[in-house]
């Protein structure tokens, strides 16, 4: 019996069942909001009317499940304010595609906004940190066209964005720790730009130290952070739906750890006896 239980496939089946059931029949478990999520919300709220915000989807298609809901929630929150949004991706070639998908899902016209006047997607800019650094000095010498191959000289919003000093807040939604680090090194240190955002769960523990030192104005952690943000901004979306499944998945993991240790203790006693 114990040999059969050692086969992890039983655990996989249990895990998958515990994920699928809440998706088919939602349970509606309670959820609180963490301090870091409130800090992100406060950072966005503190942006004054008419400001320019840089929203950077620094992730690729493989992280869509974790971060797309976060991007949609932050975009909705920004569109509710009287701010202009510039977006560009630096991490992967698919990041502007994800921004385009988010923009179409949210619908600029629903908020009385227009592409080119209130929002622009500059596409993918390779080069990583060097590009972020160069963008801070002179945007127009680096970016020639937007994601839809329209020259930036024909985009009215780009008249207001020439360098990092025109940006009041950077929101970086990242798939790896390199991206928050690069924004902090190149924009926060040099220009004092406020940086906030979110990331995949794996790098969130590292970002906590930047939040504590004040270099990041709060940080959202993966789909949990996105769900909390949706709750806080009263814009329920994709992330909240998945929280029940997330809950049960975590319970299965905890049960697995408990069983592992119980069987270890029992086998040790049997070994002694």
């Amino acid at each position, binding site marked *: 019996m114990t040999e059969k239980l050692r086969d992890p496939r039983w655990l996989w089946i249990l895990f998958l069942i515990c994920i699928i059931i809440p998706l088919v029949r939602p349970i509606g478990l309670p959820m609180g909001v963490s301090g870091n999520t409130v800090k992100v919300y406060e950072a966005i709220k503190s942006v004054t009317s008419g400001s320019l915000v840089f929203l950077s989807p620094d992730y690729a298609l493989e992280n869509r499940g974790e971060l797309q809901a976060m991007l949609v929630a932050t975009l909705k929150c920004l569109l509710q304010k009287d701010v202009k949004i510039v977006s560009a991706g630096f991490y992967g070639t698919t990041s502007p595609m994800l921004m385009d998908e988010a923009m179409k899902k949210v619908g600029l016209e629903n908020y009385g906004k227009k592409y080119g006047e209130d929002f622009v997607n500059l596409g993918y800019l390779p080069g990583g*940190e060097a590009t972020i650094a160069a963008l801070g000095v002179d945007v127009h010498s680096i970016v020639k066209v937007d994601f839809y191959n329209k020259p930036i000289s024909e985009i009215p919003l780009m008249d207001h964005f020439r360098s990092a000093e025109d940006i009041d807040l950077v929101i970086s939604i990242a798939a790896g720790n390199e991206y928050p680090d690069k924004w902090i090194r190149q924009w926060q240190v040099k220009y004092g730009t406020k940086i906030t955002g979110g990331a995949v769960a794996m790098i969130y523990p590292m970002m906590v130290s930047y939040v504590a030192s004040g270099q990041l104005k709060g940080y959202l*952690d993966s789909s949990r952070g996105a769900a909390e943000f949706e709750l806080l901004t009263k814009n329920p979306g994709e992330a909240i739906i998945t929280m029940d499944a997330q809950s049960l998945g975590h319970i299965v993991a905890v049960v697995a750890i408990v069983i592992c240790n119980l069987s270890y203790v029992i086998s040790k006693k049997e070994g002694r006896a």
Partner: protein
Amino acid sequence: MVSEIILSLISSAFVVMIFSFLYKDSIWFHFVTHIYIAGAAAYGVAICLKNIYYQGVVPFTQGSYWYLLALIGCALMFTRFVRGYEWLIRLPSAALIGVGIGLNMAAGVQAQIIAQITDTMKSITTSTIATSVNNLIIIAGVCSVTMFFFFSRETKGAMGSINRVGRCFLMVTLGSSFAYALLGRTSLLIERFKVLVVYPDYYILILAAAVILYDALIRRKRNSLSPFFEVSS
């Protein structure tokens, strides 16, 4: 629309083929991995070609003659494919590395070292005991883990004790990191199943479950794989 339904079914079939790896490594898994790697590589190449044009060729033709160096660097990158001249790729690579290192080093001192150390050195005699204890734990943790990574000295005596404390803090950090990593990957899994449990994709899930059940029965009866899961050579 019919085309949307067909695309959704194909997409779900591919996802289920990826999940088939959990049951058995089979030709289906390798088939789908070849497809998605090919697609990702092709799109990456296309976007990068567009960027070479818009960020290199266009500025050069508009009079920014600095970009001639960039275009020469791009051309040298392609010597990777010319036998006998592969070493020329080191020149633009060295430029990439030099700029990257310089940017990292210059700003990294402030961002990653000074700011972090400044925030660590907090007062341990504050108005509340809880805050004082927390600050003390942070100082002890940062110092001991930093010492843990100092490999130039033997871990004996006081160094050994500090090392042990550092290891304990590191285990707490790694435990929480593991939990967060699991949270992240679970989100991706949930996202896939969110699509698979709705119409019409649940038919694919049911079909996949039936195929796996059939294969399991065949294996039990005949002690061999069914035709669905034989790995081709």
